């Protein structure tokens, strides 16, 4: 049957001309954006992410201010090797919240896919976009762009609200320092990549609880365990596993301290995380195309 044999609905139908256009990536992107902004849970998670970033910056700034006023506390900080390795600057203060914000971002990105499977929405999505992959890439664009905008805005707000406090503590965000600029941009880049990574995990696992458990393990529990193991053990493999963990490698891009002999260089570390992400996205695309919805 060809398109020319369209039945006589033009005259009989109550809606003589329903304009239906071909599915394009731009249209799928618009649809995914509508889906994203019409769920309260996603809107709330985005707000929480920004609040966490700004809240931690304020907390840390106040702490530094307190330290500047309290000589004993400043001395304690100066003698703490862990604290020294941070290479404390204004940038360190305003980006500090990323390690908690990443959990919110990871959960949000995974849920964008898994909630469609748990509710059955995925079948409506694939009925409208039966080629499937445009829907996955559109979700990717939505979550990555949203993360970039929200984190950039949160950093901007954090910069403004901590400015007077940091001044008093003799700290500043120095945009002429290339390392600080790299760390600020790196914070946005890292969280956007975590979002892409988590979206892929969500698409591969399809179950909300399983995906969230996996992501919390990868971005929170494993680094915690390995920071203890590395300190306690002399085995070389623990160093290697630790520095290649997605979060440990990726967050090097936000570091401003002196380079470390047990961790990767900033851009190398980020490249490792980006590599994992690409592999997961390809796997997600292949399985999404193949599996029954």
């Amino acid at each position, binding site marked *: *049957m*060809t*398109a020319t044999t*369209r*039945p*006589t*609905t033009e005259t*009989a*139908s*109550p*809606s003589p001309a*329903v*304009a*239906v*256009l*071909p*599915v394009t990536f731009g*249209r*799928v992107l*618009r*649809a*995914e954006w*509508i*889906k994203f902004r*019409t*769920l*309260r*849970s996603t809107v709330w998670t985005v707000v929480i992410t920004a609040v966490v970033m700004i809240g931690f910056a304020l907390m840390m700034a106040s702490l530094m201010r307190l330290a500047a006023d309290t000589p004993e506390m400043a001395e304690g900080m100066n003698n703490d090797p862990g604290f020294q390795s941070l290479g404390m600057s204004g940038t360190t203060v305003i980006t500090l919240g990323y390690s908690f914000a990443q959990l919110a971002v990871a959960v949000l990105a995974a849920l964008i896919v898994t*909630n*469609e499977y748990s*509710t*059955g*929405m*995925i*079948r*409506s999505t*694939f*009925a*409208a*976009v*039966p*080629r*499937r992959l445009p829907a996955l890439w559109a979700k990717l664009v939505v979550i990555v762009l949203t993360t970039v905008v929200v984190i950039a805005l949160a950093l901007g707000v954090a910069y403004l609200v901590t400015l007077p406090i940091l001044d008093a503590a003799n700290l500043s965000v120095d945009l002429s320092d290339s390392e600080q600029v790299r760390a600020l941009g790196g914070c946005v880049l890292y969280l956007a990549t975590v979002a892409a990574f988590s979206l892929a995990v969500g698409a591969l696992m399809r179950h909300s609880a399983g995906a969230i458990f996996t992501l919390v393990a990868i971005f929170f529990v494993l680094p915690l365990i390995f920071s203890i193991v590395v300190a306690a053990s002399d085995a070389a493999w623990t160093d290697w596993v630790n520095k290649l963990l997605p979060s440990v490698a990726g967050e090097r891009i936000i570091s401003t301290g002196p380079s470390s002999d047990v961790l990767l260089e900033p851009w190398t570390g980020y490249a490792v995380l980006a590599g994992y992400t690409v592999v997961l996205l390809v796997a997600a695309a292949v399985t999404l195309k*193949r*599996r*029954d*919805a």
Partner: protein
Amino acid sequence: MIEAHGLTKRYGTKLAVDDVTFTVRPGIVTGFLGPNGAGKSTTMRMIMGLDRPTAGSVTVNGSPYAQHARPLAEVGALLEAKAVHPGRTARQHLQALAATHGIATTRVDEVIELTGLSAVARKRVGGFSLGMGQRLGVAVALLGDPRTLILDEPVNGLDPEGVLWVRNLARYLAGQGRTVFLSSHLMSEVALTADHVVVIGRGRILADTTVQDLLDGASRRAVLVRSPQATELAEALRRDGAEVARRDDGALMVTGADAARVGETAAVAGAVLHELTPTASTLEEAYMELTADAVEYRSEEMTEGAPR
């Protein structure tokens, strides 16, 4: 137009759809009838490209569903109530799907009105009843003004008025020259709505015929006989080649001989007749007979003389 060729779907060791071939034509309502678990939904999901066939192929309006540039203008499907995120409103759900095909908001509001959802369109779907969810599913199916409609158990959960509405809608859409493929596990529903019927059981096509032919062909005529000499009469009828079953109340159900022959046989055998009633099997009986061997989940019949 839907054309399935050798369509097969296997889940592990279980063959859900077994080498199914059929054609659904435009301009009429085609019923897809079968017991629960017969493979109706799986077949419909394969038509929509949601499940990948193990073997065989299926096309809609000439191409596999996924290859159409405007899928929603080709096929509108109601595959299950509430393939919807409960946190969105009905209108938001429709708008998101409409956006994929650049369908205007005016059309979204049109299908909302057409399906009687105006009052609840801005309420979140999570609070919808099964019937409202079903209406939203129909609204989604109509959104792209499709040439082909696939409705999986559309009357499930609808009140009598809703059932009538779906029936009229299906016939109206077919009357406009569209292809309407509607599944049900209820013979009576299909008989009221469809012109043609494809019967499926245990993944195989059992019949592909007009509804009228199915009723005529599958219905078997029987004669109910009551006689004080039932035993002798039964023997005489069996010698004549008829099949005789004795009912609990002592009456005989005779098949393979019409009322006249039963009467004649009784006269020859000298049996007194208290009742002689020709009966036609009902729609449901015809359907049960056809699918008797193809029912996956059967309730055990109560055995006679079972302890009470």
